[in-house]
């Protein structure tokens, strides 16, 4: 009969109206500034720079290779290389960024900078309350604002941070093993040189070949 569907619809909306007062499942609104729900782990919005240790500027992992600057689709990363060098996490001397700015009003949160970074130096943050009264300067973040500790990275993306730490530890171990081997080789060479002062052509050849083979052994 004509109007049957309308009555059904009215009953449905009445059910929703009354239900929203009594049922928590129906009314799913979270009263945001007062109430918050934890973000899901894969949340990401804008990139930040990771640092190790306590001093943000000394511990920056970034070596100013500028790959992210080149890859950034909206071109919102601005890097100036330093003229001097500082030791990185394994102790090797590296260039560091004298200036590292990200314009988050341009950034489109694509995460490509994170994908291309070979040094695990830039990662995605979950901070979203970034509104400011100054839309030009306020949204151009410099390296002091961007630098956040590895602990922060662990807090926002625990799984990814653990993977990164594991990878870095492996890398460091490899580099240390290499350094140790190199040190041992030079020590052995020195010892050999000391043991045989009367050099023969054969001994010289053996001592030259030996260090090259050792790391593989």
């Amino acid at each position, binding site marked *: *009969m*004509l*109007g049957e569907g*309308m009555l059904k*619809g*009215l009953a*449905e*909306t*009445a059910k*929703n*109206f009354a*239900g*929203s*007062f009594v049922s928590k499942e*129906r*009314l*799913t*609104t979270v*009263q945001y500034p007062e109430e918050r729900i934890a973000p899901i782990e894969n949340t990401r919005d804008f990139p930040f720079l990771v640092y190790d240790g306590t001093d943000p500027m000394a511990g920056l992992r970034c070596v100013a290779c500028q790959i992210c600057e080149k890859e950034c689709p909206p071109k919102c990363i601005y890097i100036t290389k330093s003229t001097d060098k500082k030791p990185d996490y394994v102790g090797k001397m590296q260039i560091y960024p004298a200036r590292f700015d990200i314009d988050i009003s341009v950034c489109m949160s694509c995460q490509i900078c994170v994908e291309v970074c070979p040094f695990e130096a830039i990662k995605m943050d979950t901070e979203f309350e970034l509104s400011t009264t100054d839309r030009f300067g306020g949204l151009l973040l410099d390296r002091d604002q961007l630098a956040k500790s590895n602990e922060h990275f662990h807090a926002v993306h625990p799984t990814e941070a653990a993977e990164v730490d594991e990878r870095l530890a492996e890398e460091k171990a490899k580099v240390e093993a290499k350094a140790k081997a190199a040190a041992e080789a030079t020590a052995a060479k020195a010892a050999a040189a000391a043991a045989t002062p009367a050099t023969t052509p054969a001994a010289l050849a053996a001592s030259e070949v030996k260090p090259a083979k050792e790391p593989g052994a």
Partner: protein
Amino acid sequence: MNFAAKLDQVFVLLQHWIAGFFPMWLQPFVATVLAVVGIVAAFPGIFALTTVLERKGLGRIQNRLGPNRVGPFGLLQPVADGIKSLTKEDIVPLSADAVVHFLAPVILVVAVFLGFAVLPIGRNMVLSNFDAGLLFFFAIGASTELSIFMAGWSSRNKYSLLGAMRAVAQMISYEVPLLLSSVVVVMITGSLSTVKIVEAQGGFSGILPHWYVFTPWGFAGFVLFLIAALAETNRSPFDLPEGESELVAGYFTEYSGFKFALFFLGEYLGMFSIAGFAITLFLGGWGAPFSFLTFIPSWAWFFLKLLAAIMLFIWLRGTMPRLRQDQLMNFAWKFMLPMTLLNLVVAGSWRFFGDGWVRWVVCSLVLLGSYALLGRALMRKQGLGPRSYRYAD
């Protein structure tokens, strides 16, 4: 005069008391001005309340909370909205007809306010009780179409013009069933005066009132009047003239700031006045619904009924999807018009049958039967029902 009667007449007594301070020859004028001020203050107040109620009600229907930030429970939201619309820039398009563009919202609000002049809000509470009150209301109601077309035409905007065209077509189409569905009341009462119509519904049998809605022709007339009223005030599901998904905002697309607020006000006031007339014609006006509740002031009953009508309108808005233009027109001319004409015949035969149970049975059967038949014929023509998709099944 006892306390209940005094409370019932409190506004009338107040009016007389204030008018008493003026010289005799000025008193009728002062009394009228006071009544006008009362109407002009009360109904926009209800409008402010309605905007919050509507947003909260629609929110609850959609399982949301609705506005709850400004003031306790969001009740100060209309104040914030008012400040916002007052401080916004008033933009007039370069190619618009500036004078007509300015006049359109003013005429709308004036015309809508004029409609309240003959609306009995309580016992002895009507601004002007003249014999052709109902006719006056419909004549004034028709002039809102003029302002809507002025708005659409003067904006020089295709959306505005399309919205205005739709609005005029819709309002003229639904004016016919609106008038015809209220004619039954005039036939039974024998008067066009709104005060007389309310008085005719005044008595009680047992505890139940003699409202026209409790008769077969009255119920049919009430439902038809309500549908036509929804269309006449451009409320959902008949909000084609301002369908935001199709026409931006329809005829007031080019309005901003306070002029937009005036259109908004005019639209809601139109809704109140037409709901007030539905109450006056079919729901006993300011009369109490039960004989033992007559101690509550008459004006309180009127406003309670008005709030109930507004809630019904909000409920309908939260439920119904918008009609298509051809469905709207088909509904007006193929369903509403035959039903209202039939209702006239039924109301006439109601008088002809005289008292007794026969008229109840005959009138109800005729109306129900024709409703069912007409509905079935319309549904068959429209090809409604489950759809089959050739490639998707």
